[in-house]
């Protein structure tokens, strides 16, 4: 039963549950062949789950997926790939120690045994044909983020894919990188490949997609709708829904990526006393290979400084250098006028440094440990190791703090991993945003959070600024940075290459991110 030949993908009543959490709720949708389709929604709306169901990585509890009329056996990646579906993941599925050739090979069919030379020749040819400028001999871990993505896409195109799904491909790209990606996508459309883009910025959708479908809370709100003449505001309302609190214009724009915020100028920029100052800081190369080079940075009291840049250009090294977790070769770090270049992180925390780390789960929390232990860690480190503690007292204090921050939890003894992303981040905030903080480093604090939680984090950072704290805000989302920051600094290859004040211009900042203009 071939059905309507122009429908490439048809989902009927697809439902996915993870324990108590409903990821997809009876989603029925069909997509036409040969077009570029966008699926949008905030974090947690179910976009990635949807992509994974279609590509066979996740088996739905209910419902069916048909590719070109043929029904797929759920939960089988091989089946989906046979049918011509390929998925490029948000955080790439490339083993870091593999060479590019090996990474391409292990997903390919045919040819069991190979020689290294033959392998590299075969895949170099494929890469060249797709205009991907990467050497097949390079190891994945040495590639930049854009190169890795290009390799992932190349790998997805090895077999003759009919439907290519890209999960949040623009999240890690500079504006220019995103444009190049859209070019590539348009060329694929010319070749007859149907492309499904998971996006969450409205202006990207309007720039490249032919249709748009909106997911919210695991349900399909509407779609596929044609994007020609589509009203960005209407789309924003569909994405946000009515449940989130009232958001002001610029915030709303930043959250949905409808328009680029320009940022507000705050008064008296000049006479701020610096809360933190870095002078000529050099570090040794990080795990991802970047080292800081002659970095000068000043953060004033009551100021949010945004650190923009494609991931992997030294942002981590910068944060680690300020925290004292990186080996600083030259230069100095000052907190509130005092030189802390030789101080340990514990000492810097005493001096008022606070950090919301990049990875919530790996660096910010111990998922299997109880909430009260996670929350008390910093406090306990200020005391001698053998000092007596009262768990009951610590639990009380923790409970008070978590309640003050409106965290949804059952009891303070539950493991941190049982909280939702937004709540877990609130726990970290309750721990780091105390009154005694002078400099708060917020590294990708809203990553993976839904709109409500994101707005909450922004408000917390603004309140900290209002208290007189200095905030260093690292993000790969320019909309967010423009909305929040008083000043934006761009990092490239371990250097600070540009500084901007509001009103912010997307093109100029984007160009600085890729070094287009020296």
């Amino acid at each position: 039963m071939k059905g309507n030949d122009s429908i490439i993908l048809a989902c009927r009543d697809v439902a996915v549950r993870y324990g108590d959490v409903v990821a997809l709720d009876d989603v029925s949708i069909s997509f036409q062949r040969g077009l570029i389709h966008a699926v949008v929604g905030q974090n947690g709306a179910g976009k990635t789950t949807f992509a994974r169901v279609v590509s066979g990585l996740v088996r739905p509890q209910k419902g069916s997926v048909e590719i070109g009329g043929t029904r797929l056996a759920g939960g089988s990646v091989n089946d989906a790939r046979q049918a011509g579906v390929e998925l490029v993941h948000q955080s790439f599925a490339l083993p870091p120690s593999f060479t590019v050739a090996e990474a391409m090979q292990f997903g390919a069919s045919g040819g069991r045994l190979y020689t290294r030379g033959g392998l590299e020749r075969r895949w170099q040819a494929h890469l060249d044909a797709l205009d991907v400028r990467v050497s097949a001999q390079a190891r994945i871990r040495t590639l930049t983020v854009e190169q890795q993505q290009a390799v992932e896409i190349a790998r997805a195109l090895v077999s003759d894919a009919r439907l290519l799904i890209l999960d949040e491909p623009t999240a890690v790209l500079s504006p220019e990188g995103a444009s190049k990606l859209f070019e590539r996508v348009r060329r694929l459309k010319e070749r007859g490949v149907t492309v499904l883009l998971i996006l969450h910025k409205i202006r990207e959708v309007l720039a490249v997609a032919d249709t748009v479908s909106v997911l919210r809370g695991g349900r399909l709100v509407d779609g596929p709708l044609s994007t020609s003449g589509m009203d960005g505001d209407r789309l924003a309302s569909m994405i946000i829904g009515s449940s989130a609190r009232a958001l002001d214009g610029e915030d709303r724009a930043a959250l949905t990526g409808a328009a680029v915020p320009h940022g507000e100028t705050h008064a008296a920029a000049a006479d701020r006393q610096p809360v933190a100052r870095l002078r000529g800081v050099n570090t040794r190369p990080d795990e991802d290979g970047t080292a800081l080079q002659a970095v000068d940075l000043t953060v004033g009291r009551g100021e949010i400084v945004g650190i923009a840049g494609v991931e992997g250009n030294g942002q981590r090294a910068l944060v680690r250098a300020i925290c004292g977790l990186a080996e600083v070769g030259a230069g100095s770090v000052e907190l509130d006028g005092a030189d802390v270049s030789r101080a340990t992180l514990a000492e810097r925390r005493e001096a008022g440094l606070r950090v919301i780390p990049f990875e919530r789960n790996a660096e910010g929390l111990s998922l299997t440990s109880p909430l009260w232990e996670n929350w008390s860690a910093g406090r306990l480190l200020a005391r001698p190791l053998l000092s007596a503690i009262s768990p009951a007292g610590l639990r009380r204090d923790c409970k008070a703090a978590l309640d003050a921050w409106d965290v949804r939890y059952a009891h303070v003894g539950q493991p941190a991993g049982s909280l939702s992303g937004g709540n877990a981040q609130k726990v970290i905030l309750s721990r780091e945003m105390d009154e005694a903080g002078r400099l708060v480093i917020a590294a990708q604090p809203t990553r993976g959070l839904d709109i409500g939680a994101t707005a909450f984090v922004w408000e917390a950072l603004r309140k900290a600024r209002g208290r007189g704290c200095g905030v260093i805000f690292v993000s790969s989302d320019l909309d967010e940075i423009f909305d929040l920051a008083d000043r934006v600094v761009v990092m490239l290859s371990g250097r600070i290459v540009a500084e901007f004040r509001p009103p912010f211009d997307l093109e100029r900042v984007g160009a600085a991110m890729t070094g287009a203009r020296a």
Partner: protein
Amino acid sequence: MDDVVIAILRSGTPLVYVTLAGVIAQRAGIWHLGLEGLMITGACATVVGTVLTGSVATALSIAVLICVVGSILFWFVVEKLRANQIIAGLGLTGLGLGGTSLAIQSIFGSQAAISAPAGLPRIGAAFGAYGVLSVLVLLMPLAVFLCWLLLCRTRFGLRLSASGEHPFAARSVGVNPSAMRLAALVIGGVLCALAGAELAAGSLQIFSQNMTAGRGFMGFAAVIFGAGHPLWATLAALFFAVVGALGIRAQLVFGDRIPHDLLLGLPYIATVFGVWLSARLRGGAKAAAGGFGELRDN
């Protein structure tokens, strides 16, 4: 000189086989501390099997079968029951050591060493003095080569490595990491059986309790030393064997002047050195063992 080389090959071959088993498991993401238990099971089964059935070939097959069953059990506990790899591995080793002891007691009624009427076939007089070495010694370089070929030049090997290093990447191309680990452990089981067979029946045809004396752990250490690469790990294993042989040699040369036990300790010291060196070379940062299970967050 010849007899030194022969001694090194004799003691090195079981170590190399068990190291290869460890390498394959490591690639699939398993820290296999059960190698010792599998090895002694292989040794016991070979000797006892020969005594009971009279045929070395049958005994060897039984040894392989038992080791494979043990490996499947280990896979089940570690994969399906998600037990901590290190503790479960030590448990498997304990089962091997205790089980062989129990078997000896039950079959022969005593704890004394068992002597088999025949051992593994020898290479033959055509090779001169080296003729006394068993066939498994001759096959050892082939095993190393096949292992290298499998892991580094086939798609199966790539998929195995992906299963260990980045299971999500493996699943995204339709590979089942769990099934890969099963394959890895089963192959390893066969190799451990061969290791045990060579140890017991390769030269002296005797099985005595605890005769592995930590060789399974040394094999594991060789895997670490060789960073999971079949060729480097094999060299590390041979290095440990050389140290062991030198120790015995030194005993003969120096007699009572150097404590006997100190020389016996040389391979263990070499192992510690090897682990330390490989950690230094790799920057010392990544110290986390693979499967901490409930004792670690991830």
